[in-house]
């Protein structure tokens, strides 16, 4: 009898590991999605450079997060702020978690590459990427997801990482894009110029792949599928899908009304915004709530991209700051509004919303300050930007000695 109970417990454990691995594999594939979106939304002369950055932050993240980052994030808590680091993690019964967290970490890192595309020195990016995946991301991640972190204790809800992953990446991107400065020709005579992406099909394929990956990202963050979790996972799949759809439709309508034509690149950003926006609350809101969060996210991203580009004059070629930073923060706040248990619209008052705001703010501050310090030092030492002539010629030929497209 006990034997049987043990076996059943073991089966449930197997199911959870199985699901976490499959979900992690889908999340892994998001790297291809990011690469395609970023390459598609930028000029062909910088394609190899973008691929290289995305590939390298995955590789460096995989190695660095395993080597030290994972324990900084999930090691025994030191004062609720940081985990006890240890080297080269190797805990036989926990490797599925290491994998799942690794691909999340790589996601946070790769977001930055979009915001700084087409002008950043490759070596500088590599160094930043290493610090991002081993220090910046793990520390704030610890606050929320380790279990003993100070934000967990406050009751902060960020189920799958609208803030922990996306807005950390987004804010780091904001600081980086601002410090590095706009691409040559982006702003002339106080006017923002359009620099067209070179392949919209890549952008679209990338978004399809990201959307697919998000079915690992959000539902996988249940970190289980046995027992009652199965239905939770299914719920999350639905909220995720509805938010993405609503985000895309909203962005489509908004650009159609505002600019006269339905704009593909904004609609794609709208879908991504819906996905980022629902990430925090995917397990806490109803399908209707999810659709609304998606719609709000889609609306916000269109406005935010315009404001950051034209008013703040920060050059973010792919909209990473808006999609991941702004909408990531917004989505986290909206949990306080739409959570069926404790949300403002469900009679929960402002309490949860307040906690959400604290989390969004403190993690944002951390990401901004940490990134600023790192990049400031890099700026004073090896520099952030490629030489002007290299930028004009394109980073592919100058940094990597080859064009992406040939006969």
């Amino acid at each position, binding site marked *: 009898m006990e034997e049987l109970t043990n076996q059943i417990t073991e089966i449930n454990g197997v199911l959870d590991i199985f699901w976490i691995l499959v979900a992690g594999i889908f999340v892994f594939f998001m790297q291809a999605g990011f690469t395609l979106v970023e390459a598609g939304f930028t000029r062909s002369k910088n394609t190899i450079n973008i691929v290289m950055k995305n590939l390298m932050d995955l590789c460096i993240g995989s190695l660095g997060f395993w080597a030290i980052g994972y324990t900084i994030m999930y090691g025994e808590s030191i004062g609720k702020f940081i985990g006890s680091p240890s080297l080269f993690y190797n805990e036989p019964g926990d490797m599925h978690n290491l994998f799942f967290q690794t691909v999340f970490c790589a996601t946070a890192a790769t977001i930055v590459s979009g915001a700084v595309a087409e002008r950043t020195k490759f070596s500088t990016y590599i160094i930043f990427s290493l610090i991002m995946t081993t220090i910046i991301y793990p520390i704030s991640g610890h606050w929320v997801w380790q279990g003993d972190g100070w934000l967990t204790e406050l009751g902060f809800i960020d189920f799958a990482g609208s803030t922990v992953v996306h807005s950390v990446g987004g804010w780091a991107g904001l600081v980086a894009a601002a410090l590095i400065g706009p691409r040559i020709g982006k702003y002339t005579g106080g006017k923002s110029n359009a620099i*067209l992406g070179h392949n919209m099909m890549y952008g679209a394929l990338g978004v399809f792949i990201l959307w697919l990956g998000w079915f690992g990202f959000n539902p996988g963050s249940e970190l289980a599928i046995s027992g009652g979790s199965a239905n939770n996972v299914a719920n999350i799949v639905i909220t995720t899908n509805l938010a993405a759809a609503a985000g895309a439709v909203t962005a489509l309508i908004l650009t159609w009304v505002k600019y006269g034509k339905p*704009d593909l690149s904004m609609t794609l950003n709208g879908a991504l915004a819906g996905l980022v926006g629902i990430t925090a609350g995917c397990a806490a809101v109803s399908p209707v709530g999810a659709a609304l969060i998606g719609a709000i996210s889609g609306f916000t991203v269109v406005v935010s991209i315009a404001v950051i580009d034209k008013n703040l004059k920060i050059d973010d070629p792919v909209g990473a700051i808006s999609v991941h930073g702004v909408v990531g923060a917004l989505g986290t706040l909206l949990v306080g509004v739409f959570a069926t248990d404790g949300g403002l619209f469900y009679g929960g008052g402002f309490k949860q919303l307040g906690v959400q705001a604290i989390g969004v703010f403190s993690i944002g501050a951390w990401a901004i300050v940490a990134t600023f310090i790192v990049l400031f030092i890099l700026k004073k030492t090896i520099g952030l930007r490629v030489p002007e002539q290299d930028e004009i010629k394109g980073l592919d030929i100058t940094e990597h000695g080859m064009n992406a497209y040939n006969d």
Partner: protein
Amino acid sequence: MKKIEAIIRKSKFSEVKEALHNVGVVFFSYWDVTGLGNEKEGHVYRSITYSTSDIQRRYLSIVVNDDFEDITVKTIIESAKTGEVGDGKIFVSDIAECYRIRTGEKGGETLK
């Protein structure tokens, strides 16, 4: 012999090609270029409204014997015209000599 270079709207190409065909001008080369001219196109990309005069055009290069010059020019003008700004230009210049690679022969005969 004359070289007639025409820069036309891409969307008019099949009409022009057919019209030229009908008057017996069936040998030429073409490629796509970007043209700057009077025409401007307004666009929006990621919330930025901009207007560009860098417009995709098709470039036709046709070498003909002198007696074909007028009909070629006339045909292009008729078939490529929409009446809107941006219909393009035709330039005529002299060709000193002309060879057919396959046979090595030269002169106006090679254009027939």
